[in-house]
């Protein structure tokens, strides 16, 4: 059910519509808690036991290499709780003691460096709120649109990251003339490796150690992660332990065999780092249910690896007409942006969708336009418009069901 985004008044209204018994039970509970001494204080918080939203983990015969999807249909606002951040691992989640972890910076530098986490934390810190999306998010949509928003668009999350500017750290090491790439390697069992253009590293990359106000979670790269704003998740190497300055990309397995985009002509686009503008309606979305006709707030998330979301347009008539949704301010570049639109469901079938336009003028394409440009075998970087069908009885399914 997608009710969590709704206001208390709305819930009460829905409860009343569903039958007076529900409301009476709720009121009794509320009164009871006020007559009972509550639980004592605890050292580290947990969410309410009534909250059930969890990640969906795709089955894998080798669970150490797998994907999990954020329940974005339950999301509120624009930050993903660290505990619900999507995950994609290729060699499991390592357990790393930060007091022994080291990052080496070597190759084409004046002063090769070996840094402890304490060294890194001594440097001036930077905090940025950013979206992170797996390059393979929505990959299933190439073949056929999928049933619910979590499993089709849920490999995206938003966090506040804190760390040091990579440009700053490269100054500490002194980049030698002629260097043009940075080879990043992680400390997990597959020692994830990616080649990053030096221009990006100098522009806005971070080495993050903090996420949402505390040290980042092990699954997100604890104790140190390369963050490349706006670029596919895999290029944000977790458990970072080595940066080698070179004059060539290293053609790692995860930038050749994987995370590259095969085109119908048999050629493959490589170094397709950027995540383009995308949005999706999270309520109402596939698998949810509107309890009856009436006024609802339609809502969802939009983002662009290119910068600010300029606007989000919503259709409630299958794409015939589009109207502007309200955007939650403050909008931040390369960050999840929530959109909302009041919508009266009149009990007749409606086909709804959103499309994002970013500050570069890029318009989120239809699935058909993407397939016309790239065929259906490129796996990665799918950012098509997602249509939901709200049936007359209030059930919501994906278009194509």
């Amino acid at each position, binding site marked *: 059910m997608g009710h969590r985004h709704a206001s208390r008044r709305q819930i009460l209204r829905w409860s009343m519509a569903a039958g007076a018994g529900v409301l009476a039970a709720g009121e009794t509970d509320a009164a009871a808690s006020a007559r009972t001494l509550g639980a004592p204080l605890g050292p580290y918080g947990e969410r309410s036991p009534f909250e059930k939203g969890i990640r969906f983990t795709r089955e894998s015969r*080798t669970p150490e290499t797998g994907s999990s999807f954020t329940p974005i249909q339950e999301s509120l606002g624009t930050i993903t709780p660290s505990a619900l951040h999507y995950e994609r691992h290729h060699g499991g989640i390592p357990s790393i003691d930060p007091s022994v972890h080291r990052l*080496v910076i*070597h190759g084409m530098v004046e002063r090769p460096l070996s840094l402890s986490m304490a060294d890194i934390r001594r440097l001036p810190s930077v905090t940025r709120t950013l979206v992170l999306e797996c390059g393979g998010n929505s990959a299933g949509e190439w073949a056929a649109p999928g049933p619910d928003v979590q499993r089709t668009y849920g490999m995206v999350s938003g966090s506040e990251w804190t760390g040091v500017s990579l440009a700053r750290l490269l100054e500490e090491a002194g980049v030698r003339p002629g260097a043009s790439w940075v080879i990043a390697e992680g400390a997990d069992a597959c020692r994830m490796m990616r080649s990053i253009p030096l221009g990006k590293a100098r522009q806005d990359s971070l080495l993050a150690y903090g996420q949402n106000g505390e040290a980042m979670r092990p699954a997100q790269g604890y104790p140190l992660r390369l963050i490349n704003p706006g670029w596919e998740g895999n290029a944000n190497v977790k458990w970072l332990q080595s940066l080698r300055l070179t004059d060539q990309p290293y053609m790692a397995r995860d930038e050749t065999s994987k995370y590259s985009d095969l085109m119908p002509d048999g050629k493959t686009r490589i170094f397709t780092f950027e995540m383009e503008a995308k949005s999706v309606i999270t309520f109402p979305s596939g698998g949810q249910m509107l309890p009856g006709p009436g006024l609802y707030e339609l809502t969802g998330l939009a983002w662009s690896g290119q910068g600010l979301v300029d606007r989000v347009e919503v259709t409630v008539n299958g794409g015939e007409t589009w109207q502007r949704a309200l955007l939650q301010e403050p909008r931040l570049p390369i960050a999840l942006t929530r959109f909302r639109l009041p919508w009266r469901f009149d009990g007749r079938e409606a086909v709804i969708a959103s499309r994002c336009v970013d500050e570069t003028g890029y318009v989120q394409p239809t699935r058909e336009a993407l397939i016309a440009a790239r065929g259906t075998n490129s796996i990665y970087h799918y950012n098509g418009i997602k249509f939901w069908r709200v049936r007359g009885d209030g059930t919501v399914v994906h278009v194509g069901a």
Partner: protein
Amino acid sequence: MWARNGVGLAVLMALASAGSINASLGSASGVAQSPRFGVGRAPTADEIRDLGSAIAPDGTGLPAGSGNVSQGRAVFAAHCARCHGRQGEGEIGARLVGGQGSLRSPRPLKTVGSFWPYATTLWDYVNRAMPFDKPGALQPDEVYAVSAFILNLNGIIGDDQVLNAVTLPKVQMPNRDGFVPDARPDVNGLKPRPQPTPVR
């Protein structure tokens, strides 16, 4: 325009090394003038070897050692076959053979043989990440050998070929010229935007 017509990786890499990315983006303003904090110390040789073992497509970083196809067959049977199948046909782990000529078809089969542009990538990846549940278990000789076996299974090198730091980077992979720069945005008639990628 050239970027859209499938220029080989050699050109792509040459461009990158000529500093075109640096030029297009510059360095973050202000940082260049900031004082150094002087954190950290010089890394030891062991640290660099253990933490940053990446192998370049020109072979930079490959260690001494060698291996041939028949040695590789034994390594594969002992360490890889249980997940990738006896002949690399794929099981829990990916299929490692076949697919040449399929990339343009509706059902492309991407394998080391049909898809990977460099043999050095195979050496690097097996060395860093395989066997999946015991990474780092193989000695350099064994990695050369098992790489030779997989390339031989794919018909890329002959039965008698020995792989070492000199011969491995020279192996011609069938899809070596199959990679092209990013051409996005490629929808809605938008013009290519300036991107911090090496290829624009």
